[in-house]
């Protein structure tokens, strides 16, 4: 219980401290302190195999544990990078930025712990609000426009999720008043008595609402704008952390549907939205000229894969959990490197960037490796997880889904290669004077670690991670 | 037999009082003394004693217009209850009522077109445009009332579910009264839809159509307009407050004071509001229509 409280309160307290600090140089180190403390507490959870809880609302379960660990690891990576990044951006005050990042960490941790649908909603809405100032870090008209779209679309989406939550409560209390409504552990045993029409309505609204947050097509429209205009660091946290939190919300919903025996209703919708997201991502990837927006569509694609895995069930669900971890790590490499490239070349247009490998050897190499990883090529972890999902689909005999899945992956590979390869290789432009900062230790070290992690996951999955992922997948009918 | 026609008789005799009272109210708000309450009676008498002038380009339609519209309004008034009872009532008479009002309007419009003046044609076009919004609203109101009272005759529809006294449906009936009030303002060319006092060519609607009529024809038109106003106000009165069952004197008093009250409300609205710009009028009527639609959705549930 103490651990849990510390996990939630440390970022908030440090946010207060960072508000009080006057120096823009020293303030970013608060991020590292928070991240290290958070990560060590989470590591302690793994070592001692503890399952802390406060009451029944906040408690850790296998699914929450995986998401929490991912949040903690990615935030640690982001915080180290953030110090290097913010030191280069001293022309902008970073007080709001650092404080919002810390609140973001706290809110996402609440999501991971939350066992109550109402609390889950409050925490997810809080993540939206905490991340809006992050998008607006650059304070120009384009980032402002992106912030407005993000805020409006996500707020509307999350509002629909609130309506869905209310529907769920109605489904639960339909037969008469119940103890502790909307509480997941209490709801699962009595799921059989939920009112089916209201459950279906709740499912649709929650799927649309949290799907908006996750960036599933056709609710993904905020994503290219937000990821394109935000600093690479923020894009990384949104695409790695926030989407995983939204995925966790969908997992909670699936738990209820499964307990109520309504998976036949849920599966086709998951599969439909999953394939649609992949298809939309593939189409928009082909004509893309902006490499940050390209990454946004890549995120739409991977969210589609996760949802597809959830819908297919069985082996594919295990694959989806593995994929969530891989995607988070690989997105870190890509977004952070895209941030470096953006700062150096001062353009987001892919056709104006050439020879990254010459100018920024580390960033160029990592960006290329990240591209190979994210498109699901061996030997990286995403190959394993995408292959697991494919095996799940083949095992179920869904040949149409298999064809669509492989087709989208192939198109996306080609689309991304068309953008990334000319950027990394080729002759760098000659206007050396116009170029920005070079690689530094802080801005390349953590992506290197992330990439190493993705590589390791492709070759060998440690047994403790495997057990944890399996336990998380088993909550929603997954198996290996 | 004779008592049957008392409601109609009251309507025919008292109708010119309504515009008089509205004008008195407006004058009081403007701090003027205003024309006497019975001014319209004097006007009608004066006009009836005059001769009419007819343009050589007009045909019989122009002469028939005022007579037909007055006649249709009087017949329509047969169906409207006065103090709780109507002169004539049968199931389905709402259709007859609505189309008699429509017939009157049709002939007024025809007569205006018959003059061949582009000016009057413009008024006719406006009149018909606004009627396009007002008539559906009236019908939707009838649907709601038919649904609420289970009756298809105007007098029982209006008297069985008054707003005061039916608390279970107060919200629904408030919608009905509100949209009927807007329709009443629109049908009778009152502010904010039309200004009966203006003679500014760009803004007139109803007034412009009758510019070429004179003498007894104009008297018929003015008298018909006042009956129409009386009839609509009487409908509102029955919808708002239940008529007591007791003696005719008692219900007559209640009815009379209600009529005066609603008339004064119209006067207040006219004093407080400015005439809407022409393009905004359809939006007001549309809003009334949508509110009535909303009421219909509630009542059909």
């Amino acid at each position, binding site marked *: 219980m103490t651990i849990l409280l510390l996990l939630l309160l440390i970022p908030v307290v440090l946010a207060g401290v960072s508000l009080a600090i006057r120096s823009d140089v020293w303030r970013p180190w608060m991020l590292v302190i928070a991240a290290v403390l958070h990560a060590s507490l989470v590591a302690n959870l793994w070592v001692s195999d503890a399952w802390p809880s406060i009451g029944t609302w906040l408690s850790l379960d296998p699914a929450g544990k995986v998401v929490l660990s991912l949040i903690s690891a990615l935030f640690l990576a982001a915080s180290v990078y953030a110090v290097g990044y913010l030191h280069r951006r001293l022309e902008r005050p970073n007080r709001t930025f650092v404080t919002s990042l810390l609140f973001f960490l706290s809110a996402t941790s609440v999501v991971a712990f939350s066992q109550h649908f109402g609390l889950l909603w409050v925490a997810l809405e809080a993540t939206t*609000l905490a991340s809006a100032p992050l998008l607006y870090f650059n304070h120009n*008209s384009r980032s402002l426009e992106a912030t*407005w779209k993000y805020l409006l679309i996500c707020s509307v989406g999350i509002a629909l999720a609130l*309506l869905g939550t209310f529907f769920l409560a*109605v489904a639960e209390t339909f037969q008469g008043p119940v103890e502790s409504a909307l509480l997941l552990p209490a709801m699962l045993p009595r799921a059989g008595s939920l009112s089916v029409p209201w459950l279906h309505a709740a499912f649709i609204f929650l799927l649309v609402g949290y799907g908006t947050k996750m960036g599933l097509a056709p609710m993904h429209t905020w994503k290219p704008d937000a990821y*394109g205009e935000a600093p690479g660091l923020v894009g990384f946290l949104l695409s790695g952390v926030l989407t995983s939190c939204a995925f966790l919300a969908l997992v909670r919903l699936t738990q209820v549907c499964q307990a109520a025996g309504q998976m036949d209703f849920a599966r086709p919708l998951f599969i439909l939205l999953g394939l649609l997201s992949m298809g939309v991502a593939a189409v928009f990837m082909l004509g893309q000229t902006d490499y940050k927006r390209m990454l946004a569509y890549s995120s739409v694609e991977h969210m589609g894969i996760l949802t597809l895995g959830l819908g297919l069930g069985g082996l594919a669900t295990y694959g989806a959990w593995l994929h969530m971890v891989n995607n988070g790590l690989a997105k870190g490499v890509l977004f952070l490197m895209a941030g470096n490239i953006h700062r150096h070349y001062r353009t987001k247009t892919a056709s104006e960037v050439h020879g990254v490998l010459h100018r920024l050897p580390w960033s160029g190499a990592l960006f290329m490796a990240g591209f190979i990883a994210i498109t699901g090529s061996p030997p990286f972890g995403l190959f394993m997880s995408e292959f697991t999902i494919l095996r799940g689909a083949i095992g179920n005999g869904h040949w149409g889904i298999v064809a669509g899945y492989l087709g989208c992956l192939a198109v996306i590979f080609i689309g991304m290669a068309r953008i990334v390869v000319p950027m990394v290789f080729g002759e760098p432009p000659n206007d050396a004077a116009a170029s920005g900062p070079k690689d530094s230790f802080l801005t390349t070290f953590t992506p290197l670690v992330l990439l190493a992690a993705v590589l390791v996951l492709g070759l060998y999955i440690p047994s403790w991670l495997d057990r944890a992922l399996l336990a998380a997948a088993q909550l929603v009918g997954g198996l290996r | 037999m004779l008592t049957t026609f008392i409601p109609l008789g009251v309507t025919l005799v008292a109708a010119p009082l309504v515009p008089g009272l509205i004008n008195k109210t407006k004058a009081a708000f403007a701090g003027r003394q205003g024309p006497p309450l019975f001014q319209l009676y004097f006007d009608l008498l004066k006009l009836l004693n005059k001769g009419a002038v007819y343009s050589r380009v007009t045909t019989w339609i122009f002469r028939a217009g005022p007579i037909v519209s007055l006649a249709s309004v009087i017949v329509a008034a047969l169906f409207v209850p006065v103090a709780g009872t109507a002169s004539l009532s049968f199931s389905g008479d709402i259709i007859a009522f609505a189309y008699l009002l429509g017939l009157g309007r049709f002939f007024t419009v025809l007569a205006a077109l018959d003059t061949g003046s582009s000016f009057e044609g413009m008024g006719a076009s406006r009149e018909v445009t606004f009627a396009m919004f007002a008539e559906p609203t009236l019908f939707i109101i009838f649907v709601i009332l038919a649904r609420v009272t289970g009756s298809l005759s105007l007098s029982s529809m209006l008297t069985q579910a008054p707003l005061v006294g039916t608390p279970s449906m107060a919200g629904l009936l408030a919608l009905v009264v509100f949209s009927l009030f807007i329709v009443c303002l629109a049908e009778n060319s009152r502010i904010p839809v039309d200004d009966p006092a203006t003679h500014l060519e760009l803004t007139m609607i109803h007034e412009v159509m009758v510019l070429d009529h004179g003498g007894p024809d104009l008297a018929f038109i003015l008298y018909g307009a006042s009956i129409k106003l009386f009839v609509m106000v009487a409908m509102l009165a029955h919808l708002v407050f239940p008529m007591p069952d007791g003696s005719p004197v008692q219900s007559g008093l209640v009815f009379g004071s209600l009529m005066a009250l609603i008339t004064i409300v119209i006067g207040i609205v006219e004093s407080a509001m400015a005439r809407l710009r022409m393009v905004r009028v359809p*939006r007001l009527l*549309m809003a009334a229509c*949508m509110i009535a639609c909303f009421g219909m959705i509630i009542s059909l*549930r």
Partner: protein
Amino acid sequence: MEHVTQLLLILVILANLFVLGSHPLGACIRAVAFQGIALGLLPLSLHPEERSIHLFVIALGMVGLKGFVIPGLLFRAIRDAAIRKEQEPLIGFNTGLFLGAILVGLGFGIAGKLPLPPHTGSSMVVPVALSTVMMGLLVIVTRAKILSQALGYLILENGIYTFGLILAAGLPGLIEMGVLLDIFAGIFIMGTVIEHIHREFGSISAHKLVNLRE
């Protein structure tokens, strides 16, 4: 209390129709504030047998927040941005009104398909909530001024709140507080962004926000 509930719900819908059919932004904000007050009073008429502190606190908080604080924020935004009218909606006001009436019908239709939850208080709560949600979405997608879009979001939230009233007794107060806080913070941030947009673009018309598109 049934008819008081009905009357309040009708006022809620009328406020929606008003926003759909009129263009002075100030009047629209006032209509939404009015709607907020009607909604704030709704729990008292909906659960007349339950005169708990909880219920009164919700009612008071709602009237204060939705009726005064949030409209105040929006008024500040339009005063700073010196705008008064929604000039260029993507669809005309008459069409907007017409679509609004269709949505009301749709709301009643959908609610008719779902079984009525017990202890709803009035059979009109669910349809009114659903149609308010849909009308809020309609305002968001059809209005060009970003302030109107924020207003649409507020209407959407009001619709959801209306639905939530069915559960008022069953939901823990902490969650309600969280929801209220989130909504307030959301509107506050939106207001701030609106001010920034006005400063940056010299206008708060969404037509200006076209830098980012495929």
